[in-house]
């Protein structure tokens, strides 16, 4: 029998890591991720989890230790947030380029300066182009599920690429809600033991992480790019099989009440659940609005995304970070680009909100829907608008 227990997302992640029976955890605590390594360290100390817990001195060391662990074929987990991910950055690129499968949970946090421990997506957007498979959880159950799924697909011999599971700092990491924990034998049925085909072995020497001169570096990057794109089929198959076994089905682009919708709102992560309440209220008033949520961020699900928005007149994208000097939000920029060559495409309107833990309540999503439709109809002098900013904003425009 599965159990229904009250857990914050951090502890749900720790349960998933325990049930995945990982071999090595190397992590450095940082707000708002702290409860994840704290709980895992406790599990290892109490004998609930037989794993090596490496208490490293920094995030750079954490991920470096993980590289070594995967190199010998260990199932490996790490987790960080905000500044920790920034300090780890160099090694983030190394892990994916060496095709070392592991799962890393990011409890998404704003970046300094000014110092903020609260949530937004600036941290993950700074590693957007590092070649990791990147997904977003909307609630605590999904945080649990995506960690299990993450190990399954990352370690697949056709993928061998690390998976980053994003969950919003505090909004998920520290909020308790009901989570269904499956039986261990069901988890074992979904997640086979990790067999890394290139594990270091003194009887069969090999070189990992060799130097590449200009005459081969290009080829290494193309091979990595093709592999990341080809992984998508396996990611989707993993979600299909997860759904068959656990009864919860995930998709790269998730749709909510989009039937006949003229206006679509696009969100990622925990924004999605609040947005659903607002969409419900508007639908009840007869408004033709719907919600599109990006679960899979990399590799970007172009086909599913274009299919999802092709009938809409207006697409309102709500970003949780700024791409300074660019289009506005990185998600909006991506989405506009994805639609550029489509013969029929909605007007795309860009909003930024929820920076550095600024609350996004139902009324704020209502504002985004109303103002978004107004901008779509009449245009705006600004490239994007910011939800709840104090003071009239001008000067965010093409120069």
């Amino acid at each position, binding site marked *: 029998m599965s159990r229904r227990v009250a857990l914050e997302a951090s502890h749900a992640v720790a349960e998933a890591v325990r049930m995945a029976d990982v071999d090595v955890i190397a992590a450095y605590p940082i707000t708002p991720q702290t409860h994840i390594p704290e709980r895992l360290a406790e599990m290892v100390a109490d004998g609930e989890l037989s794993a090596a817990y490496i208490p490293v001195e920094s995030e750079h060391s954490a991920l470096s230790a993980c590289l070594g662990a995967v190199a010998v074929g260990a199932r490996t987990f790490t987790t960080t947030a905000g500044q920790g991910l920034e300090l780890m950055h160099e090694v983030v690129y190394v892990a994916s*380029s*060496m*095709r*070392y499968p592991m799962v890393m949970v990011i409890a998404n946090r704003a970046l300094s300066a000014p110092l903020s421990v609260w949530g937004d997506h600036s941290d993950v957007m700074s590693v957007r182009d590092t070649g990791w498979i990147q997904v977003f959880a909307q609630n605590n159950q999904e945080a649990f599920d995506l960690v299990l799924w993450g190990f399954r697909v990352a370690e697949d011999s056709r993928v*061998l690429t690390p998976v980053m599971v994003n969950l919003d700092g505090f909004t998920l990491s520290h909020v308790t809600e009901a989570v269904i924990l499956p039986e261990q034998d069901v988890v074992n049925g979904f997640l086979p033991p990790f067999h890394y*085909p*290139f594990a270091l072995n003194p009887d069969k*020497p*090999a*070189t*990992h992480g*060799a130097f*590449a001169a200009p*005459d*081969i570096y*290009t*080829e*290494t990057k*193309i*091979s990595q790019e*093709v*592999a990341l794109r080809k992984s998508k089929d396996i990611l989707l198959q993993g979600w299909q099989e997860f759904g068959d076994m656990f009864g919860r089905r995930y998709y790269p682009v998730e749709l909510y009440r989009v039937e006949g919708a003229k206006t679509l709102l696009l969100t990622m992560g925990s924004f999605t659940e609040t947005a659903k309440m607002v969409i419900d209220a508007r639908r009840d008033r007869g408004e033709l609005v719907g919600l599109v949520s990006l679960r899979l961020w990399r590799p970007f699900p172009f086909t599913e995304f274009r299919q999802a928005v092709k009938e809409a007149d207006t697409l309102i994208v709500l970003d949780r970070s700024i791409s300074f000097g660019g289009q506005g939000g990185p998600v909006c920029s991506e989405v506009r680009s994805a639609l550029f060559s489509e013969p029929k495409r909605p007007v795309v309107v860009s909003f930024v909100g929820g920076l550095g833990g600024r609350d996004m309540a139902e009324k704020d999503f209502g504002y985004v829907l109303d103002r978004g439709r107004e901008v779509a109809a009449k245009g705006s002098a600004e490239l994007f608008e910011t939800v709840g900013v104090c003071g009239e904003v001008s000067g965010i425009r093409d120069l």
Partner: protein
Amino acid sequence: MAKKLTWRDLEVGNIVTEPGNSAERSTGDWRTERPVFDKSICIKCGLCWLHCPDSAIKILDDGYYDVDLFYCKGCGICESVCPKKGAIVMVEEEEK
């Protein structure tokens, strides 16, 4: 010479499964000068072999020395350390 690899030839994560195959890689192709050895002057002291930073000096069957141009970068250290003037002389590479 190692054959030119395409992106499809690369192992997952660019892992090298044949250790030591860097020896197949030509590293002497940007040389501007090369050493020429004269056996009539050489005393077989081996200082050139000892000092070469790239192990590009080889010992011949008769105990004399010569250069392996597959690796030699033309630094001239062998000529500089040679105690017998004229046994090793650096000459300019010519465009072929």
